[in-house]
């Protein structure tokens, strides 16, 4: 079995993002970038499946500018076998990413595709589902547990009501929740070995797909600052306000 894992380079989750003064986006210069956190869970799960003997090869793929390769390199350091970097500059929407991935799937023919459930930059939560639609594959989103069976996966999903279990036929797409596993650390020797693993670079413009953005970003601004409300004098007044004014209890 072959597993394709898609990873994205995003602003590190610890960094306090700053909106640019001109409203065109957020500051990314000199800002620590990392792999999108649930993408780390996706890689980890693929590696675990490979370690259990149920998968032979893990291919890590990213779409983005040159430096996006770092995320593939990190995936290689924790157990992916080889990497693919689709070079694209500028904004790229999930629809375009899924079309690019569709092209790569046609070529690579993986049995499973894993990725994080959502990127922490644009918070779209779309790519996995879109790719599943384009390929007409089943989708198991927000996975917190994956059991590999003969020709299918049994996946536990984190949904609002609790947990849902579905069985999806292979080939399938799984988007991973942070609760799926605890990603391992890359060890020094593995980081060194990863430097020697191959990363195939493909120019996004050569895939013959229209990847132009369809959504115009008109402006990006800081969220409005919340204003202080009122001070209440007693608990009774508080409860009365919550009940009759805010109507939340």
């Amino acid at each position, binding site marked *: 079995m072959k597993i394709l894992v898609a990873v994205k380079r995003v602003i590190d989750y610890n960094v306090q993002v700053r909106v640019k003064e001109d409203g065109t986006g957020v500051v990314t210069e000199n800002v620590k970038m990392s792999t999108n956190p649930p993408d780390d869970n996706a890689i980890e799960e693929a590696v675990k499946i490979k370690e259990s003997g149920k998968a032979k090869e893990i291919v890590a793929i990213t779409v983005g500018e040159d430096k996006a390769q770092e995320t593939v390199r990190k995936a290689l350091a924790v157990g992916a076998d080889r990497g693919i970097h689709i070079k694209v500059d500028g904004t790229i929407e999930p*629809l375009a990413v899924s079309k690019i991935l569709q092209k790569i799937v046609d070529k690579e023919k993986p049995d499973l595709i894993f990725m994080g459930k959502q990127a922490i930059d644009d918070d779209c939560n779309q790519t996995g*589902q879109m790719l599943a639609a384009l390929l007409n594959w089943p989708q198991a989103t927000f996975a917190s547990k994956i059991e590999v069976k003969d020709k299918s996966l049994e996946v536990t999903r984190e949904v609002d009501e609790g947990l849902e279990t579905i069985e999806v036929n292979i080939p399938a797409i799984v988007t991973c929740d942070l609760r799926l596993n605890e990603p391992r650390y890359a060890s020094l020797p593995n980081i060194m070995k990863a430097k020697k693993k191959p990363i195939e670079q493909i120019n996004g413009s050569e895939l013959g797909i229209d990847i132009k953005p369809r959504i115009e970003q008109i402006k990006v601004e800081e969220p409005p600052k919340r204003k202080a409300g009122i001070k209440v004098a007693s608990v009774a007044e508080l409860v009365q306000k919550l009940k009759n004014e805010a109507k939340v209890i």
Partner: protein
Amino acid sequence: MSVLLIAEHNNNEVRPFTLNAITAASQIDQDLHVLVIGKKIDAVSKSISEIPNVKKVIAVDNEIYENYLAENFTPVIIKHSENYSHIVCSANTFGKNLMPRVAALLDTSQVSDIIKVISPDTFLRPIYAGNAFATVKSNDKKKCITIRPTSFDPAQTSGGSAEIIKAEKEEATSLTKFIKREEVKSDRPELGTARIVISGGRGMASGENFKLITAIADKLNAAIGASRAAVDAGYITNDHQVGQTGKVVVPDLYIAVGISGAIQHLAGMKESKIIVAINKDGEAPIFSVADYGLEADLFEALPQFLEELNKLNTIQK
């Protein structure tokens, strides 16, 4: 221009987030139709038809739709999408799972998780976990949109009488099989999705004292949160932590007790609809974001709070 909204329900009743989504959808266009897909959904369809904002209900009733699998729902939605300018649903796990599958087949770049309708093609949506707001304009002919439920009030549920049209099922999927759904057995809602969250901070002074919080959480059917300080002090486990490295929560009501309001904590809860702060330090930063602040000793205020709640005849849960 008309809007097609995909209803979320459990075959018996409409899920509340659908009502919030209906409010947003009717801000896009008054001509709002709701697609109800499920098994034995007459009652659900009827209740939706009574929502004044809804102009038409399309019901697709078949046993294959008992459990909402995106693979099964998508062909139905695609089939009915033709006459609509917007396909919308709520941005909870239901809509997040479903809508992109629809959008891709319609070759539409989806706009996720909107918090404001600026015009029928322009929306406000949070990015970077709410640390920035983006105004975006969709240039696709047909627009696929998911709606953050907590940003819109629920629609009225009675007074309307929309027409209900029955439609045929599509072919069932062979790709995916539903196995089971386990409602989390906890007596308490999940922190991430609870309508009410009550959190304790370092001011609780001990883990033992969290029982004051628990009693109120029981009464309000609220989830229990905590500040990092309380977690670090060992009063409560870190899966309760709200804030930067913990969870971001956006409940209707957030009650912060004995929490000073470190900016990391504020980042995790400041999008809540109503914030209540109970703290004896009147200068605590938490008061700067609270809709209702009570300057009081929490060890006196919490028992009183419970007592007052007990006096109420009804409590929304």
